[in-house]
């Protein structure tokens, strides 16, 4: 039987080796899964992990990677701050939707005015929308001690209902001949989140994500608030002794995640998405939870993890279309990644010992 022994110091090696090991295990077990579905596992894994980067049409797929990674990174960084502090916002998807709806509303309200300030105002409105949506669980938690996991998660479904209302009702394109969905921002230059460099997929969302990653890293490692976040998550009583106000921390972390998720939603709606539609929500808010953990809740790790996850999206849909794999198998694949990551994470703080081996050593 194996035995786990707590390490005196967390292992730095395993801190960074576990994501790699988790990816490797996902490839192996995922390969078995695809083999059971009747596909050649090596080809599937190559299609998912290799072709989007270096295969045919890689230029197009690389741009897709950036487009998918940007919102994931933006949301995951906010989530990671909360998770570090022990505040479990599971409803980033809802904050993402509301941010997109509120931000888009601002732009559509002034259509077709052309002004340079419209897009920045929409970004701010998007951030505000996400922030306000996140304040609901924050206030309920600090006032009535409700569980933020449940409240934020349930608010996702409320947000989806509002999104449907927006796409079919108050944001519907008046010139859309009755079709659901808002005006398309690609034909509204002042409100459009265009590629900063043509055909690279790099829009304002990608730039913001990278800037936020650096800022979050500095905040966590050098700033007093970052210290409070880490302390509250690791030792809540020591945090109170230090002088952390739990209420302020909850409001800060949930608000930050909400604002970042809202911004991600707005960038998506005005850029790659193009418009507010009923099925605008694509699960970025949930996938970002995996990204946050895959990146070790570390902002720089999250940047890498965001690209990794984007790869499974892009490669996954490539595998879906070229190899006729069911869409669900890709989701299983992503789920596996989180499962293995959390599973092997134990190696960071524990080492595996075989007691029988130790006993033999004692006899020698």
């Amino acid at each position, binding site marked *: 039987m194996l035995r786990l022994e707590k390490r*005196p*110091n*967390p292992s730095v090696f395993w801190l960074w080796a576990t994501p790699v090991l988790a990816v490797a295990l996902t490839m192996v077990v995922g390969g078995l899964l695809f083999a059971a579905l009747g596909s050649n596992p090596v080809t599937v894994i190559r299609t998912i992990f290799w072709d989007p980067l270096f295969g045919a049409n890689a230029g197009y797929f690389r741009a897709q990677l950036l487009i998918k990674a940007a919102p994931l990174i933006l949301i995951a960084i906010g989530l990671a701050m909360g998770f570090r502090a022990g505040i479990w916002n599971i409803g980033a998807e809802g904050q993402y939707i509301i941010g997109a709806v509120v931000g888009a509303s601002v732009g559509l309200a002034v259509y077709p005015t052309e002004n340079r300030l419209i897009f920045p105002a929409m970004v701010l409105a998007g951030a505000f929308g996400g922030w306000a949506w996140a304040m609901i669980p924050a206030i309920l938690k600090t006032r009535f001690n409700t569980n933020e996991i449940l409240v934020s998660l349930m608010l996702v479904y409320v947000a989806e209902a509002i999104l449907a209302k927006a796409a079919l009702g108050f944001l519907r394109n008046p010139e859309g001949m009755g079709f659901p969905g808002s005006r398309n921002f690609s034909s509204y230059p002042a409100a459009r989140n265009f590629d900063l460099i043509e055909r690279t997929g790099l829009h304002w969302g990608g730039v913001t994500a990278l800037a936020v990653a650096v800022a979050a890293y500095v905040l966590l490692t*050098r*700033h*007093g*608030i970052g*210290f409070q976040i*880490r*302390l509250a998550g*690791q*030792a809540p*009583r*020591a*945090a*109170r*002794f*230090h*002088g952390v*106000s739990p209420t302020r921390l909850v409001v800060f972390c949930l608000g930050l995640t909400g604002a970042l998720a809202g911004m991600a939603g707005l960038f998506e709606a005005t850029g790659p998405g193009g418009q507010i539609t009923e099925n605008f929500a694509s699960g970025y808010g949930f996938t970002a939870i995996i990204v946050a953990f895959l990146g070790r809740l570390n902002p720089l790790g999250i940047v890498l993890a965001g690209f990794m996850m984007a790869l499974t999206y892009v490669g996954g849909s490539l595998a879906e279309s070229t190899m006729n794999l069911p869409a669900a198998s890709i989701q299983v694949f992503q789920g596996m990644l989180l499962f293995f990551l959390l599973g092997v994470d134990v190696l960071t703080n524990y080492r595996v010992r075989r*007691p029988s081996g*130790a*006993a033999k*050593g*004692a006899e020698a």
Partner: protein
Amino acid sequence: MIANSDVSFTIAPGEIHALLGENGAGKSTLVKMIYGLVRPDQGRMFLHGEPYLPAKPAEARRLGVAMVFQHFSLFEALSVAENVALGMENPPKLRDLAARIRAVSAEYGLPLDPGRRVGDLSAGERQRVEIVRCLLQDPNLLIMDEPTSVLTPQEVEILFHTLRKLAQQGTAILYISHKLEEIRALCDTATILRRGRVVATCTPRERSAREMAELMVGASLSAPERTSAPRGEVALAVTDLSLASPIPFGTPLRGVSFTLSEGEVLGVAGVAGNGQDELLLALSGELRSPAGAIRLMGRPVGALGPQARRAAGLVAAPEDRYGHAAAPDMSLIENAYLTAGVRMGLTRRGFIDWPKTRAFTEAVIRDYDVRTPGPDVAARALSGGNLQKFLMGRELDQGAKVIVINQPTWGVDAAAAGAIRQKILDCAARGAAVLVISQDLDELLEIADSFTVLNEGRLSAPRPVRGLQRDEIGLMMGGAHGMEEATIAT
């Protein structure tokens, strides 16, 4: 790290054998091996002449080895009998078990009602639950890890009576403590460990406490020196402080009032669980009170949080090192910033000055002889005593006007405890007002100028230590139990 190296000792049936040593000397590792929690890398153990190498505690218990831990593992919401049943492999029916608990507790003079809820018991009574739990297994060898640290002098007497009776019936007892006078009163033999090795075996009755302490430390000891500073102005005034406890099964503070002057050391005695933790929380700022209930140099601070109080000149050191005073998984540098950030100017415009924090951490490590590979290791990697030295240094080195400490030397070896007490006195000599909450009476009598007792959340009027008799103190503390029963009856 090698915790134990070539340790040999024997213990005979009916013998009470003391295991003495500094913190980190390897006492805990040694008894963990005997109890099957840790495997030795080398060497052999024999129980009744048979080779003995338990793979897990259950096996050790089956072979007649029982252990009472320093920290109890009891469920407060469950009854005594339920708690005992939880620790057994095949528990009998609760009613039969209750009868056996009554029989055993009567036989050994350990009054215990199996039906009471553990949350309502005093620390001494909780320890009895643990002891009775062990006695139900008819052990041949009973290991006791620092059993008297939570007991009143009267409760210690009851415990010693029980242990002597057990020894007469042939049970071997391995007794770990660093209260040397107790060991002299109770134990037949003592094995002294230093840095994992046996340095001496002696008969405690024939040695003085000082001699044994010196064997433990490997150096000669000096008693703390006091230079009594002139009393200055009132630094801390607490007036009629009443607060509900935030801790489940905690004790509320009831009308606590006292004043503390510059240069004074006020000792607060009392059995654990009588409001000590709550008093510390109220003074550190973790629990808020009406502003005027706590005044620091005349300024009302009751409504301020911990950081604002530190800035105003009040620092506090809680008892629990792992998780309260320190974040176990954070480095010593980060733990230094935890409380010293405000007073030592370690923050600039919200950003932490890590180089300056490192310098402060290194200074504390040096001044307090903290044994650590460096300031970057996690706090949990340090032994209890070393971490305590670090945490004491962190508070005492901030030049604060008022210093509040709960259990300054809990679980710390004699040499380190002496050093910590000396530093506390040094702080008082430079004019700091110090409040020391402790369950170690000897400690309080050694360093305090005035003395008071916390009973059921009420603080007695402070009295000068000079001229105070030990029996009086015992009665003051023991009074808690009389009152406790009275409150339950109403």
